[in-house]
């Protein structure tokens, strides 16, 4: 197995929830479903205040190809389409507020029974898109787009990402251990869509039970491939490199090296959508960290408020930071009035000690970030450019290759917020680009 260069070994911290069985989150009274839960063109809300909705009913309409709808997490009444805090952007963005009626009634005809292996590629893609499925590892790119590479791109390998390399999180782990069939069937559907006869399921070696269960259950065409434990092993490009030895070119996509990567949770959702027409309205997420009293893995409806999730897990205890996602790439939240999203793989509550909050000092050129960077960049240089807004120079230094995995910042002994500087540079570069486009 050819490994990838760089990476770090932060404490895994998985023991907090690794062995806790998934608990069903009880039905709530109120849900807030942001319309934009995917990467790509926006969708438009198609319900209004006073509308009665039922579980699984579409609440929005995609605008364009790279766009998917969101669906009602339960039955009830639409209270309105309001501006709600978006957990990813931190900005106010339209969300459908639903007051649950407690009946949790499915929309007309759902769930249905059908055989995905009797459906053709077009029908399957339509089912996947209609179900609002996006990459559930956190990137939330629409799945139907990834599964439908353009003409001229030949896909030879389907890689299923069960690596879950972010510390603390165990949602994919629990899914694979407890519901292996959903994942495996979903993989087979994805293979069918891509016209492939085999797939590789990658799992980090720190999940031996998941590897064992998957090896027991997996049909011959799905190879379970344990990978050495190193962050960011689950990053798409590093995963492809480790499994195939091929490097996705700078600025390119996995399909440029003949691969498609899907998260294992996404595969489970693909199965639900194709076999039962059930849209993506719930997911498994780890609520963990030492700042929450009872860490749990929960199956929770998309749109459930963070406040309710925290209450269900015994409340906060010495919380200093609340993060959607893992500690390396997750997004710190400033309010509990935000909903669980399709891409919320974890809710992490760090104490002040674990979050290690403090200032930073000048770069001492120790080179640790250079050794840690899996993309072969010089993060120290980028951070210095960031301090001086020099985005043009940063672009020449590989700014756009940075995937913000956080390795550089994790190892920096000066505690420099390198990724933050890089995001700043990217924002400057983007805004200059859009100004130029307007001026032209």
């Amino acid at each position: 197995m050819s490994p990838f260069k760089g990476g770090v070994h932060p404490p895994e911290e998985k023991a907090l929830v690794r062995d806790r069985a998934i608990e069903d989150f009880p039905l709530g009274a109120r849900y807030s479903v942001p319309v934009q839960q995917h990467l790509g063109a926006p969708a438009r809300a198609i319900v209004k205040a006073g509308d009665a909705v039922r579980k699984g009913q579409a609440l929005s309409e995609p605008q364009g190809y790279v766009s998917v709808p969101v669906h009602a997490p339960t039955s009830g009444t639409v209270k309105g389409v309001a501006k709600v805090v978006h957990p990813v952007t931190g900005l106010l963005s339209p969300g459908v507020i639903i007051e649950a009626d407690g009946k949790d009634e499915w929309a007309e005809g759902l769930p249905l029974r059908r055989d995905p292996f009797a459906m053709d590629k077009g029908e399957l893609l339509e089912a996947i898109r209609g179900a609002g499925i996006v990459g559930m590892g956190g990137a939330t790119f629409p799945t139907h787009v990834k599964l439908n590479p353009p003409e001229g791109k030949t896909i030879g390998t389907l890689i299923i990402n069960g690596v879950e390399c972010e510390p603390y999180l165990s949602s994919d782990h629990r899914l694979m251990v407890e519901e292996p069939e959903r994942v495996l069937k979903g993989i087979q559907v994805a293979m069918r869509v891509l016209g492939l006869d085999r797939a590789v399921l990658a799992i980090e070696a720190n999940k031996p039970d998941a590897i064992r269960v998957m090896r027991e259950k997996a049909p011959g065409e799905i190879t379970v491939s344990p990978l050495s434990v190193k962050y960011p092993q689950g990053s798409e490009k590093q995963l492809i490199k480790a499994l195939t030895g091929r490097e996705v070119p700078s600025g390119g996509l996995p399909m440029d090296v003949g691969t498609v990567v899907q998260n294992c949770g996404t595969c489970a959702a693909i199965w639900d959508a194709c076999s039962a027409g059930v849209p993506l309205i719930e997911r498994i997420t780890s609520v963990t960290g030492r700042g929450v009293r009872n860490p749990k893995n929960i199956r929770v409806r998309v749109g459930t408020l963070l406040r309710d999730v925290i209450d269900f897990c015994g409340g906060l205890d010495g919380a200093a930071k609340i993060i959607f996602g893992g500690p390396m790439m997750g997004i710190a939240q400033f309010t509990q009035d935000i909903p669980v999203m399709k891409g919320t793989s974890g809710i992490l509550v760090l104490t002040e000690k674990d979050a290690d909050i403090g200032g930073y000092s000048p770069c001492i050129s120790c080179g640790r970030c250079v050794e840690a960077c899996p993309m072969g960049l010089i993060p120290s240089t980028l951070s210095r450019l960031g301090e001086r807004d020099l985005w043009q120079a940063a672009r020449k230094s590989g700014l756009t290759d940075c995937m913000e995995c956080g390795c550089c910042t994790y190892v920096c002994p000066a505690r420099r917020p390198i990724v933050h500087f890089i995001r700043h540079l990217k924002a400057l570069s983007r805004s200059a680009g859009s100004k130029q486009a307007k001026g032209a």
Partner: protein
Amino acid sequence: MKDVFVSSSPHIHSPEDIPWIMRQVVYALMPGALVGVYFFGLPALSVIAVSMISCVAVEALWQKGMRTKVQVGDWSAALTGLLLAMNLPAGCPWWMVAIGSAVAIVFGKQVYGGIGSNPFNPALVARVFLLISFPVAMTTWPRPRPFFEQAADAVTGATPLGALKTAIFEHHTITAAPRLDLMDPFLGNIGGSLGEISALAIILGGLYLIIRRIITWHTPVAFLGTVAVFTGILWKINPDLYAPPAFHLVTGGLMLGAFFMATDYVTTPISLKGKAVFGIGCGLITVIIRIWGGYPEGVAFSILIMNALVPLINRATQPRRFGAST
């Protein structure tokens, strides 16, 4: 909800911060410093103490005077002080040590903007400053004596490299130099700067730094390897004129330079490839100065010269980017 912190990811950090790293280097210098105190007695201890205290004090005063945050808690000034002391003769008067410390901190570091911004190794800047300003005191080497046999009348003598240079100047052959049992410089029983005399002690400290992953092997191996190969070739050509590589490896400031000065983060290249290039350059210049230069020793000069080339080396040794077309 009580107040929570919001910041950009990642949200966790390795516990190895700057003060931790600096302390590790101080620990790694302890064997060499102890050997110095053993062979040169209390004067050596005094030089170490004056140098460290002066460096910390000057940095604190400078930062207070400049109304910037006093950051001597990062251990960087203390380390500079210790490194400077290691590079001085044990007989240096205290005021000379204090002047050297002030030069190291002010002209070696703070005028450039403080930690992280200095192009040259501050301790070496101070050492060279003192060598030029006080050439006699800086080349008066007390003879080593075991700690419990220290006498008030410090007898002085030449360093092995100095004796070699004299022999070549006066007799045009190294065979005129006094015979040297290489175990002496290996263990520290020779004249020299107080922290450089024992190759063994320095290597032990260096290995500690490598094991702790504070430094990588690239710089010391490239530096020492270049010196060994270069002097080895010369020795093969004419053993009457050139000393054997083993002699060059264990004498002078080579070990101290290779493990502790050429590995300084701020003033050396950032990538592993760059570190190797830096080490090779240091080795070449060291040998050129030792063999053909006016000074018997060239380690400090070689590192300072290579410090000046770091931006160029960094530019030429960028790591290969993931997905690059080559």
